[in-house]
């Protein structure tokens, strides 16, 4: 296609958008609302996923050692755990260390627990990390059978719950978004239909004088793409602004934790790219629907 032709098509589609101002506005708004929801949903889902992965990767098995165990029994237990094929590391944490951790994690209110320093009710603990998160359950079951391992706990339950929550909300969200996508496409195709009807005579003449079908179609495609891309502008600006604030706020709270939100830098560009592409896609699809139906060429 020649540059002159492209210029003509762009001019033509801009003129059409202007001519049907209110319909254009309605379709752009529909795309905006759709993409806004898609964007927010996507940002939340991706971050929940990240959090779940962070937690999953960090989960470890905590093995409480029976109070009756002697120093030798403890060492024997540690040796047995270390021999398990899927175990990565085993760390020992005495009950005094556990109490210190507890007091530190509770902050000011932890002071009260200092009373227990004389008569510590906690257990000595082995913290076991597996090579892969999926092996947690298996390893935990194996350790449970060992002598002097009184209680074996791991965070899998929490992670499972989180993952199932993410799964459910993803499905619900996808249904909602698909419905919105169709609404937006329908509005776009209607807008373009109006342009086509308004320009019926022009199109008829174009065909008589030998304009190719693609030449006739292009302005309508561009119209669709423009509506879609215009609709992605507000969501991109809003979401990246909101995310900047939320990121700063939440990261400050999470300081020092193993859980982190997705970094601004690649993530916001990915979101922006996704929204633009999605906008263009909705636009192209919407215009395809009406062009195919009303331009019988």
């Amino acid at each position: 296609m020649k540059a002159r032709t492209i210029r003509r098509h762009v001019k033509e589609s801009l003129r059409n958008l202007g001519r049907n101002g209110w319909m254009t506005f309605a379709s752009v708004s529909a795309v905006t609302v759709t993409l806004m929801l898609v964007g927010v949903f996507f940002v939340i889902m991706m971050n929940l996923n990240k959090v779940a992965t962070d937690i999953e990767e960090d989960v470890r098995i905590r093995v409480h050692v029976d109070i009756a165990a002697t120093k030798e029994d403890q060492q024997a237990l540690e040796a047995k755990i270390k021999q398990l094929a899927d175990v990565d590391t085993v760390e020992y944490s005495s009950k005094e260390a556990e109490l210190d951790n507890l007091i530190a994690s509770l902050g000011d209110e932890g002071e009260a627990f200092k009373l227990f320093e004389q008569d510590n009710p906690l257990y000595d603990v082995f913290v076991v990390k597996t090579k892969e998160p999926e092996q947690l359950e298996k390893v935990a079951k194996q350790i449970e059978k060992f002598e002097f391992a009184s209680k074996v706990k791991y965070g899998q339950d929490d992670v499972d719950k989180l993952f199932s929550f993410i799964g459910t909300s993803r499905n619900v969200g996808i249904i909602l978004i698909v419905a919105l996508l169709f609404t937006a496409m329908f509005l776009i195709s209607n807008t373009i239909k109006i342009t086509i009807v308004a320009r019926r005579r022009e199109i008829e003449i174009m065909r008589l004088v030998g304009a190719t079908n693609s030449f006739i179609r292009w302005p309508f495609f561009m119209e669709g793409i423009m509506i879609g891309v215009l609709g992605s502008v507000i969501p991109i600006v809003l979401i990246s602004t909101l995310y900047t604030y939320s990121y700063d706020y939440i990261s400050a709270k999470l300081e020092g934790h193993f859980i982190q939100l997705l970094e601004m830098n690649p993530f916001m560009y990915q979101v922006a790219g996704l929204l633009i592409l999605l906008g263009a896609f909705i636009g192209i699809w919407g215009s395809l629907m009406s062009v195919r139906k009303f331009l019988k060429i």
Partner: protein
Amino acid sequence: MIEMEDVYKKYPNGVVAANGINVSIKQGEFVYVVGPSGAGKSTFIKMMYREEKPSKGAIMIDGVNLAKLKESKVPIFRRNLGVVFQDFKLLPKLTVYENVAFALEVIEESPKYIKKRVMEVLDLVGLKHKSRMLPTELSGGEQQRVSIARSIVNSPKVMIADEPTGNLDPETSWEIMRIFEEINTRGTTIVMATHNREIVNTIRHRVIAIENGQIIRDEQRGDYGYES
């Protein structure tokens, strides 16, 4: 130039508009197509510029078989063809110049060529001085001249006219016919459907009469043949 062999056309609603048409039109001929309304004249004309496809038979125009022409090749075929209608089919918001230039713009000619060529054809139809006017500011005859200018701007070998004088008063009709004659003497084949007895009987050319989807008469320098 134009050959029809056993052409049949049956519309989906059952109407048979062409029932075994055989005709041969040579390069440079001027042919009137006459016949009562609903006899198949329009279908005959429409099949020639591939607005309608024959149900059966072959239509060869300048070596192209329209019955087998792919949909995607139709635009290219139409560039070798000029079509003129009773209702002019001009774009009301474009000037005379732009209306004619439109035909060249949509086939992506260079602006330089467009300028030169449009002024040439406007000169031929005698509207060079009105190139900046809108169609609504012109008389019916002038509008038809613009539409003729647009149809010949591609230098087509064949020109097809569907009742080009149908909306014009007698005086203006003669004007339009003069232009057709001029175009014809330059070597363009013209096929013109008409109801205008006076024109057919005065400017004598080959006459093809169609009734019930069949050619019932085909004579050189014939007359209109119907009582009006």
